[in-house]
C-alpha cells in the first residue's frame, strides 16, 4: 500500500501532498522535511529507492520536480516507480506537455487526477483512457458551465 505521495521542487518547496494513512500534522511536517532533505541530497544516477524507517521511499525527478512515494516494505519498488511514471503521463495527457507551473497553478486539478488514479493508497484504475474519461466527464461539466457563464448574454 502507498503511504503517501509528495511532490516538491528542487528548492524543497512542496507542490502536492497526499497522505493515505492517518498521520498527525506534526509527523507530516517531519516527514516532509526528512523526505526533501533525503531526496534532494541524492546524487544523480544513483538508485531511486531509499529506506526511511520501515518504509521504502521511491522517488523520481522530472525536470525541476521530484515525485516521492512511500510504500510498505514488502511492496514492489519498480512498480511503484511506474506508478509515478503513470501519474506523470496522466498529468501530461491532461495538461498537454505538463510543466511544474501547471501543477503549481492548477494543483486542485492535479489532485483530482490523482484521486481518479489512486484511492486509499491503492491503484484504482490503470487504464489511462479510463482515468481521463472520468476527469473529462467532471471537467466537461465545469467547462460547460464556464462557457455558459462567460457568455455576456445577461
Amino acid at each position, binding site marked *: 500500500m502507498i503511504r503517501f505521495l509528495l511532490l516538491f521542487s528542487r528548492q524543497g518547496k*512542496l*507542490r*502536492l*501532498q*497526499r*497522505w*493515505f494513512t*492517518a*498521520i498527525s500534522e506534526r509527523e507530516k*511536517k517531519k516527514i*516532509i522535511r526528512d523526505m526533501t532533505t533525503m531526496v534532494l541530497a541524492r*546524487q544523480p*544516477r*544513483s*538508485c*531511486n*529507492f*531509499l*529506506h*526511511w524507517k*520501515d518504509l521504502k521511499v521511491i522517488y523520481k525527478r522530472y525536470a525541476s520536480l521530484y515525485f516521492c512515494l512511500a510504500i510498505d516494505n514488502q511492496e*514492489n*519498488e*519498480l*512498480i511503484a*516507480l*511506474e506508478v509515478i*511514471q503513470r501519474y506523470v503521463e496522466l498529468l501530461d495527457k491532461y495538461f498537454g506537455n505538463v510543466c511544474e507551473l501547471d501543477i503549481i*497553478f492548477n*494543483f*486542485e486539478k492535479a*489532485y*483530482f487526477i490523482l*484521486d*481518479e488514479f489512486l*484511492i*486509499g493508497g*491503492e*491503484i*484504482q*484504475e*490503470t*487504464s*489511462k*483512457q*479510463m482515468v481521463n*474519461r*472520468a476527469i*473529462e*466527464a*467532471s471537467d*466537461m*461539466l*465545469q467547462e*460547460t*458551465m*464556464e462557457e*455558459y*457563464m*462567460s457568455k455576456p448574454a445577461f
Partner: protein
Amino acid sequence: MSDVVEKTLTALPSLLSLDSHSGATKLSSTSKLGNLIRGITELTSKHEEEKLVQRELVSIKEQVSSPNTSMRQMKELMVRAIYCEMLGYETSFSYIHAIKLAQQGTALEKRVGYLAVSLFLNESHELLLLLVNTVLKDLQSTNLIEVCMALTVVGQMFPKDMIPAILPLVEEKLNHPKEIIRRKAVLALYKFYLIAPNQVQHIHNKFRKALCDKDPGVMAASLHIYLQMIQDNPEGYKDLTASFVTILKQVVGGKLPMDFNYHSVPAPWLQIQLLRILSFLGKNDQSSSEIIYEVLDESLRRAEINHNITYAILYECVKCIYTIHPKSELLEKAAKCIGNFVLSPKMNLKYLGLKALTYVVQQDPKLALQHQMTIIECLDHPDLIIKRETLELLFRITNAQNVTVIVEKMLEFLRVNKDDYTTIDLVGKVAELAEKYAPDNEWFIETMSTVFSVGGDVMQPDIPNSFLKLLSEGFDSVEEDRKLRLFAVDSYVSLLQGEPGKLPQRFLQVISWVLGEYSYLSEELEAATVLRLLAKLLDMKSTSSETKSWVLVAMTKLCEGGAGVSVAQEVCETYSSSLDTVLRQRAQELQHLSQDCELRARVLPRDAGLEPLEVDSSLSFLDGFVSEALAAGAAPYKPPHQRQEELAQSKALSLEPYGLSLPISMSSCSIADRQSPTLLSVSSGLSGDSPDLSHKGGSTTLKLDGVKRVWGREGYLSQREPVEESAHVEVPSPLRSPSQQGEAESSHSQTPATTPTPQPEQEKQQLASSLFVGLGSHSSVCLMGKSEPTTQRFRRKAKGPVSPSAASEQISNSLVSTPSTANDLLCNNLLDSSVTSELSVSSPEQTSQLSQGPAAANGTCDVELTDGDVKESSPSLVGGNSVVAADPAPHEDPDRPEGLCLNTHLPAELSGLCHSEITPLCSNQSLDLSACHVQKEDSLALVVFIYNSSDSDIQQILLELDSDELEVSCVCDSAVQGARSHSVAVCQYSLTVKRPSVHVEVVGMVSYQFPVGTPQSVQFSYKLPLTGFIRPLTVSTEEYGTMWLDFSHDTKQKLTLISDGQEPLADTLNVLKKKLQLHVVEIIGMEGIVACRLLRDQPCLMHCRLHAGTLSVWLRSPVPDLPDCLMYHCQRALQEH
C-alpha cells in the same frame, strides 16, 4: 456521461441565481490564487512569505465566515486555503467550511469541498462526523458524479464508527450498471476491510461477485481485498488458486482490452497483484504450488521487453518462485533472472538484484558465490543505499571464517552513517555476528567496544545486556574466561584514561560493571587507580544519574586498601546527600561497605558471577516474618488486582471495609517498601552480582514491584529470568593456540583496506575469498531449514576452519615476500582460497571437467557422490577465476596432471577400494600437499601426498595430525622421512570417529627441513563429511525391532520426498541408499525401515513414513549426535537429488 451533463445543465439556472457576481468573480478569483502564488514566488525571504501568507489567511478567514459569501466564492477560498496549508500554515478555521462546501455546493463546488476535506482532515478527526450525512445524501443521488465523489472520499477516509451507516448503500453500488461506480464501491469496501475487517465479514460472497465482474477494472479492484484477506488467512482461499491462475493466464496472454496495456505490457499492476496473491497461496503448500508453476513459467517467458515494467513483473515472479514450494526448473530460471538484475548497469535493478539475493541466499548460496565480484564492487559503491543492501546480504552469509571481514565492513558503514534507524538495525546485527562467530577474545572485545561507541544510546538495550551476561557466565574453559575478562578490563581502562567524556552512557555503564567485577584479574592494575578513573566519570557533567549509580556500584565492589577507601569516602560525601534517591542509596552502601571489609567480602564475593543467581521469587525467606505477622493478627496478603476488585465491588459500602482494609494495606506496604528492598539487595549481593540483577525476578511477583518503585528504574536484566540463562547465545570458545591467534591477526590485516597491493583485481579477489570463505558449509547449515541448536553445535565443532585460513594466509604471506610472477601469486591465492573456503560451487561444465580427470581414472563409484564437499572444493577456484581476467590454464596445469599422477602413488593395498578425489590441501614454493580418503570396511584411510616441488631434496618430514572429532592413528609402515626433488612422499592414516559431527576435520602440520636452512612448517586441514564413515548394516526386521527399543538418542524430522516416480517412498529410500550407503531393511506400505552403522559398531536405525506428501523420518542410535548428523546428510542428499 451525456446524461450527466444534461442534468447539470438543467441545474444551471439555479446555480447562477446563487452566484450574483457571475463571470467577473471567476476571473478575479483565479487571479487571486495566481496572485498569491506569484507573490510568494517573487519573495526572497521566509519571513516575507510568512507575512504575506498570514495576511492572506486573515482575509480568507474573514470571507469564509461572512454570510454573504457564495458557495462559488467559497470554492475559490478553499483552493487558496489548501495552498496555504500546503505551505505549512495553520488553516484549521477553514475545515468546517470545507465540510459545508461539500454539503451545500453544487457538483463543482462539492468536488472542491470534498477535496479540501480529504486533504485537511484524517480518519480520526472529529469534524469528519459532520461529513457522514453529506456522504449519505450523495450516495443516494441520481447524479453519477456526485455518487463518484462520495465514493472517492469514502475510499480515502471515513470514520470507522460510522461505517454501518453507509455500508448498505455502498454494498448496493456493487450492482450499479456503471463500472466506475462498482469499482469505487469495491475500493471503499477495501478501505472498510482495512480499518474494520469484521464490519464487512458478511459480504464476502459479494467480493467473489466483484472478482467475477465482467469489467477488468472492477475485478482488479477486488484483488486488493483478496490480497489482504489471503495474507491474513491463506487457508481460507485455497479454492480460488485455480481462478487466480486462470485470470493471470488470461492477462499474460493478452486477453484484456488494449486499454489496460502499459507500455505494451498487459495490465502490469494486475499481474503483480495476482503474483503476490499466488505467492501467499502457494507458500508451504505443494499442491497449490503445482497449479501455479505453469503460469509462472509463462510470465517469465513473456516478460522479455527491456522496460522497467517487465523487470517489475520479473522481480515479482522471482519472489513468488522462491516463496512457494520449490521447483528446480523455475528456481533455475529465477536464479538467471536474479543474475540479470545483479549484473545490470542500472542502479535500480542492481539494488533489487542484491535484495533478491539477500532473500534467496539462505536457500541457494551458490548464487551469492556466482556474483561475488559484483557484490564486492557494490560494497564500495558510492551510493549508500546499495552499500547498505550489500551489507544486508553479507550479513546473511556470515560464518566463522569471514566474520572479521564482514563486521569490519559493517562498522565502516556505521561510522559514516547518519540515520538512527539504520544504526540501530546494523549495530544489532554486528553484535549478533560478534557473539556468534567471534574468532578470538581481542576481536570480540574490540568489536563490541566499537558497537557500544557507535551504537551509543540509540541501540537496543539487550545488546549490552547480553554482552555482560556473556562475560559473567563464561564458557567452557576457565582460563579462556579469565583472558577474555582481563582483556576487557585492560581495554576499558585504557579507554577511561583517554577521553571518557565522548563515550555514550550505555558504554560507560558496561565499562563500570566490567571494571567493578573483574579488574582484580589484572595484576598490575591497582584498585585505587580504577577507583580514581571511575570517580572521574562521576565528576563529568555529561554522565547521567543512571550511569552514576552503575559507577557507584562498581566502586563498592572495588574499594579496598587505604587509597581506595579514601577515594570512596570522598565520593560518598558528595553523593550521600544527593537529591536522587537511587544515588543516595548507592552512596550509603559504598560508605558502609568500604569501611567494613568483612561484610563486603560476604556481600560481594569476588568472581561469583558464575554462580547461578538464585532469586527466591516466592520470597520464602519471609515466611517466618509472615507467619509471625499473621499470628499477631494481620490479614492475609492479597495481590493488588484483587484488592482493587474488592474495592470496586464494595464501593457502596465504603465506610466499613475501608476502616478494615487500612491496616491490611499498611502491613503489606511495610513488607514491600521497607523490608524487601534491603533483604533483596543483600541477597543479590550474596550472589555477587550487580544489584541490578536483583530485578531479575521483578516481573514475577508483586512484592518485587515494590523494589522497582524504590529504585526508581528498571534493572538492566529485568526482563530475563534466571531460568532462561541456559538457553543463552553461545560465545566464541577460542580453541586456538596463541601462535595461531597471531596468524589470525595477520589475516585481519589482509583486508584490502589495509593491505596495499599493486593489483586492484587481486585485492578484490582476496576480499572475495575472505568474504565468501566457508560459504558452502555455512549454507549447508541453512539448508537444514531451521533448528538453531544444530547450527550452533555445528559451529562449535567446526571451530577448526579458522586455522586453515590462518595457515593459508601464512603461505600467501611467504609468497609475497619471495619474488614470483603475478600469475603464480594469483594462482596460489586461488588455490588457497579454495582450500580455505570449501566452497561448493559446481556449475555443470566445471564438474564435468573434473570428472574427466580423477573420476575417470579411478572408476566412478557411488562414494564419490557422497563426498560433495571434498570433491567440489576445486571448482570454486574455477568459479572465482572466471571473474578475474586471469588465464584459467595456469591453475589447472599444476592441479590436474598432479591429481592424475598422484593416483599412481596410492598405496597398493588401497588401490582396489573406492577413494575420494585427490584434493589439494595447501602449497608453498617447495611443497604441494594433497590428500584423499579411502573407505575401508571398518575405518577410513586418509592418504596425504607430499609433493616436493623444489629443486632440492627435503629431509625430516614430520606430519602431525589432530582432530576434535576423530581418532587418528598412523599406519606404521608409512612414516616418511624425506622426499627427493620433484617426487612424492605418501603418508597413510587410519581414521575412526570419536564424536559424530556433520563434517569432521583433521588439522595437520607438516614440518620439514632442506639440507641447508631452517626447519619450516605448513599447516593444513582436511574436511570430510560424516558420510565417509557410514556403512550399511545388514539386519533382519526382527533384529531391527529389538534394537530400535534399546536406543536412546533420537531425532525426528520431515524431509522432502522424491516424487517424480511411481513409488515415492522406494525412490527416496533408494536415493538415500545410494548416496549414504544405507541398508534398506524392509518397505511395508507407507513405511520403510533402514539401517546403517558408523564404522564398526555404532548402529543407527531409521524409520520413515509417508505423511502428507513428505517423509517423516525418525532416527535412533545409541550414539549421541549421530541421528542429528545423519538426518542432516539425508536431507542434503535428498535436496541435491
